[in-house]
């Protein structure tokens, strides 16, 4: 990658470098974060070089940019994406210690959620008569 950039873009000599090290709960989570982040290409690709790698439970993001300003912008967006990934994991990753909910518990849980804020209940069947499923509830 670096050699390709040397040919195509500006020389990466004298570029600014920073390395972020973000710890995760498990090496798997670090891998997931890496895979999820890697898909989005860096904006300003010719002037920003990004390398993501995983070391044990640590995600390492190495940034090389042509200007200090780009370094700030690219690491900033990387960190806000990482924050989102971390929050998604802490909210939705299954804890191996958790016992999976039974159908009855799930039902109770659902009814409660729908009672509090007025939802569809058991779901609304779309019969194709032009009528929709309620109002697309806004979250408060």
């Amino acid at each position: 990658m670096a050699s390709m950039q040397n040919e195509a873009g500006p020389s990466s000599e004298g570029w600014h470098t920073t390395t972020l090290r973000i710890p995760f709960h498990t090496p798997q989570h670090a891998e997931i974060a890496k895979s999820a982040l890697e898909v989005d290409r860096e904006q300003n690709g010719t002037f920003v070089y990004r390398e993501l790698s995983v070391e044990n439970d640590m995600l390492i993001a190495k940034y090389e940019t042509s200007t200090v300003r780009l370094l700030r912008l690219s690491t900033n967006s990387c960190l806000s994406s990482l924050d989102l990934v971390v929050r998604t994991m802490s909210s939705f990753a299954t804890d191996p210690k958790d016992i999976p909910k039974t159908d009855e518990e799930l039902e109770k849980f659902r009814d409660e959620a729908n009672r509090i804020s007025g939802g569809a209940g058991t779901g609304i069947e779309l019969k194709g008569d032009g009528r929709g499923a309620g109002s697309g509830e806004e979250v408060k």
Partner: protein
Amino acid sequence: MTQAEASSSKKKISPLVRPNRRLLCLGIEGSANKLGVGVISHSPSPTSKTVTKVTVLSNVRHTYITSPGEGFLPSDTARHHRDWIIRVIEESIRKAGVRWSDLDCIAFTKGPGMGTPLQVGALVARTLSLLHNIPLIGVNHCVGHIEMGRQITSSHNPIVLYVSGGNTQVIAYSQQRYRIFGETLDIAVGNCLDRFARVIGLRNDPSPGYNIEVEAKKGKKLVQLPYGTKGMDVSLAGMLHSVETYTKDKKYRSWDKINQEEEDIITPYDLCYSLQETAFAMLVEITERAMAHVGARDVLIVGGVGCNLRLQEMMGIMASERNGRVFATDQSFCIDNGIMIAQAGLLAFRMGQITPLEKTGVTQRYRTDAVHVSWRA
């Protein structure tokens, strides 16, 4: 042979196979200022061997509303989505009463839309997919609108008018593609209404378009605005500029300066009314032209502007003159929502169209006719 028989004999067999168990899909939408998450299920109907039962288990949304006179900028919208997405997903999952292990696929909006807000949805979708090992489906936003509209209204093969803040397209289905028959040459009709709402200082709550619709009912005078249909296409920017110029006219009186006794004045009500009448007349015209070309009788209106009752009424008059029907959905489905992404995603999933992880990047430009509609005959 009656008309119905003629059309049914031509009806091809749907390539969709009836599911043998309940299929669940979570849809995440965040291409503009609405963040929506919904869960939909397709299950075999217990009574009929051919029917698939489609059920909306939850349809949750949070809208980023800016103050009057301001639009939503990509970076602020992305921040809103980042702040809310966890809560919206939690709510949607809880209301649907499903476990992560129950889900068969996760659908997200791949495009078109604003880049950074789209990225938020895609990033969370990817993380969830990898955490729980659920396949991902990247969905075209416009196709989501069309599929949801088709499902709700069960209109078989309509001309689709897709009108929203970012898109204005007349679409007809042919050979597994949604072909764009006509579209706007410059700005979208929703964009036109939103921008005018900003000029006259209307609130963005619940939406600028809705507020224009309300104020237009009090309009008495139709001011002249340039009418810009160009063949199959429309041009709206000139009309917007022209209606904005009226607000600088000597005869223009703003909201608080209207004197009932004064005659020969132009009020914001008149301008809202005139803008709607002119813009919608253009849309009705190009829709009618597409109907004549294709020989279709039905019109399906989708997209945020589609919940405007005046547009539905005008379209209804045109359709009735052609012995056709108009199908429109209520605001829960017209306005961007997660359930439509789930619906289009689940249809693609049932045809085996899964998006591999490396192809899940978002794209701001994604034409409606770029999608292979494998689930239709």
